[in-house]
């Protein structure tokens, strides 16, 4: 009897703690899963009875990479619950914040988490000696992205000036113009990144699935909109539970989700497949040069879709800054709620996919909270991809199979600490 057992404990170069477990007996796949072993975070309990103004500051601490995304989804849920109307300036500044986060995270992922696998090293650290230009480029790009967030809200991890209804701080014109210059200079680095990823030989693995992303705002959507699927369905954000349909599975402290098929994928590749038509023209050029057109069904290309998004966010950030400089950025008090009670949902595309926050507020306090995390939504898809991949490469040496599985999980850019908290919570007052 032949047996292949693989157990990767605490996969490296991903955010958070996950194990890959595979057991093949005589060519039969007995077990093949990504076990989420991250400690449960209990964020829903942390929000209990907190004044609604504290919520976004607490939930940004769910994740260091998607801090802005959690804060934004939280604010949108609260604002929808309490009837807050945002100004155009607030909407634009929040878009810039999301662009900063998307770029920061994608650069980290592409250069520091994924690229080492293709450059034959265990991490970006030895590259500092062997390919210093590459490392300096990654740091330089990341700095532009982080500084964009810092200019507006104080810092990316964890944003300070974002609040219900608006901001507590505003960028000056000279700051906007200086950042704009750096974004323009980043175009050369973006091109170098495209060239690098075009040169890498990514595995030729495909599995058709459903792709889900926010859409419907007339542009490549990162905030608000509707939930859209490549299987042709759209739903309002408030109906997110009819899309996610979460289920607890024993091998994971994070729940799995399913919509029209057994699993679905969210993230850059899903956004690309759903919103290709509204990509910034320069990003579309980049996609064309890489031979990428929807529907892309190779999960390894998620990282390449991320590089296309870096281009998109750079260009859109320049356009938004031009608009803001032209109109002027003015001090404004945050918009006020029209009531102190309600239930509301917020949907935001964080780097790894669509994030939902939903709150119930009574007398200004959070009495119920639910968050559905993009990585949680990818777990079922990851398991199924692994189950398809293993038989296809079973004749390879165990180290190569293990490495391919690790690379597959890394391609999804999982954010595991985010994904380990789950259920809807209703706090019943005793």
């Amino acid at each position: 009897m032949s047996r292949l057992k693989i157990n990767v404990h605490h996969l490296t170069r991903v955010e958070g703690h996950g194990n890959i477990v595979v057991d093949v007996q005589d060519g039969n796949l007995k077990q093949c899963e990504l076990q989420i072993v991250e400690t449960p975070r209990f964020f829903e309990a942390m929000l209990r009875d907190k004044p609604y103004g504290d919520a976004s500051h607490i939930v940004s601490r769910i994740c260091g990479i998607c801090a802005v995304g959690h804060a934004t989804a939280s604010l949108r849920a609260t604002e929808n619950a309490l009837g807050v109307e945002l100004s155009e300036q607030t909407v634009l500044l929040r878009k810039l914040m999301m662009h900063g986060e998307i770029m920061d995270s994608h650069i980290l992922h592409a250069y520091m988490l994924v690229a080492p696998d293709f450059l034959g090293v265990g991490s970006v650290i030895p590259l500092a000696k062997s390919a210093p230009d590459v490392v300096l480029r990654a740091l330089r790009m990341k700095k532009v992205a982080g500084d964009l967030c810092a200019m507006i809200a104080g810092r990316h991890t964890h944003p300070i000036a974002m609040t219900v209804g608006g901001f507590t701080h505003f960028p000056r014109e000279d700051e906007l113009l200086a950042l704009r210059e750096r974004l323009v200079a980043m175009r050369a680095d973006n091109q170098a990144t495209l060239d690098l990823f075009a040169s890498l030989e990514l595995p030729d693995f495909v599995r058709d699935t459903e792709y889900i992303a926010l859409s419907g705002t007339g542009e490549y959507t990162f905030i608000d909109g509707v939930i859209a699927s490549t299987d042709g369905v759209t739903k309002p954000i408030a109906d997110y539970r009819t899309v996610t349909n979460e289920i607890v599975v024993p091998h994971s402290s994070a729940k799995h989700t399913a919509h029209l098929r057994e699993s679905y994928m969210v993230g850059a590749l899903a956004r690309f497949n759903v919103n290709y038509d509204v990509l910034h023209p320069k990003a579309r050029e980049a996609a064309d040069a890489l031979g990428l057109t929807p529907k892309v069904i190779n999960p390894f290309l998620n990282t390449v879709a991320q590089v296309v998004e870096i281009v998109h966010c750079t260009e859109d950030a320049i356009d938004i800054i031009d608009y803001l400089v032209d109109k002027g950025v003015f001090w404004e008090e945050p918009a006020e709620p029209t009531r102190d009670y309600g239930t509301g949902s917020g949907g935001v595309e964080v780097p790894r996919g669509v994030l939902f926050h939903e709150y119930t507020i009574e007398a200004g306090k959070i009495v119920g909270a639910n968050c559905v995390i993009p990585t949680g939504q990818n777990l079922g898809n990851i398991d199924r991809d692994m189950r398809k991949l293993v038989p296809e490469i079973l004749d390879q040496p165990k180290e190569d199979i293990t490495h391919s599985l690790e690379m597959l999980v890394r391609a999804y850019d999982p954010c595991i600490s985010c994904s380990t908290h789950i259920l809807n919570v209703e706090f019943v007052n005793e």
Partner: protein
Amino acid sequence: MSGKPKVAFFEFTSCEGCQLTVVDTLQNHPDLLNVIDIVEFREASSDKAQDGYDIAFIEGSCTRPGDEAKIKEIRETASIVVALGACAHLGGVNAIRNRMPLQDVREYVYQEKADWFDTYEPRPIEAVVEVDAFIPGCPIDREEFVKAVKHLLQGRMPKLADYPMCIECKLAGNVCVYKRGKTCLGPVTRAGCDAICPAYGYGCEGCRGLVPGQNVNLESMKDVLRENGMSDEDIDAKLSIFLTYQLMELEGKAPNVTLEN
């Protein structure tokens, strides 16, 4: 220690934001990689420490009994253990739930599956093993981190501010946020962050912990918050975000501390 010290990073229950901040310090200080030898850093590297390590940075709180063994192993291996960030230093936001009965929290979140997941009251690393130094904040401040590394390389412990954050606000020329109709925990919070939150128009939430020593005047702080329109409930809520563990320690109610403070 001679030569480049071997440095390792570990995380427990955390958002990994402090380690990400460490990565971002390389933007302004790429030469850091020339003076330390990073032998383990799970999020950024597949390489594992082969020969132990001299300095261990630990991010995150200990929130389950199962994690204590690893923390003790790190303590046994490293000469210097540094708690990195508010979660490791003070329990961070993880500790908010320590005011609630543990079983209630488990059932609220996991209901009938409450007992599937190993968990207990979140606590700082120093509740499990002795810690040589800490870098406070949520997240850590990049420059404070670099300064701490420099101190460690010189063979001394990092020196942190021991005065309230208000002093940094005054030095920066900030308009006090109280004058802007908001509230702030600056008077009782340890300085060292350049008063970044007030600088961006938001009152301090105490993420760096209380000013050390006997003089932190919490009762007066609560009076000021009340005078500025906060209800007792809201005051407790604000203090709970980062200070639950420290306040419970002062009340003699900190969960199962294994070392004397």
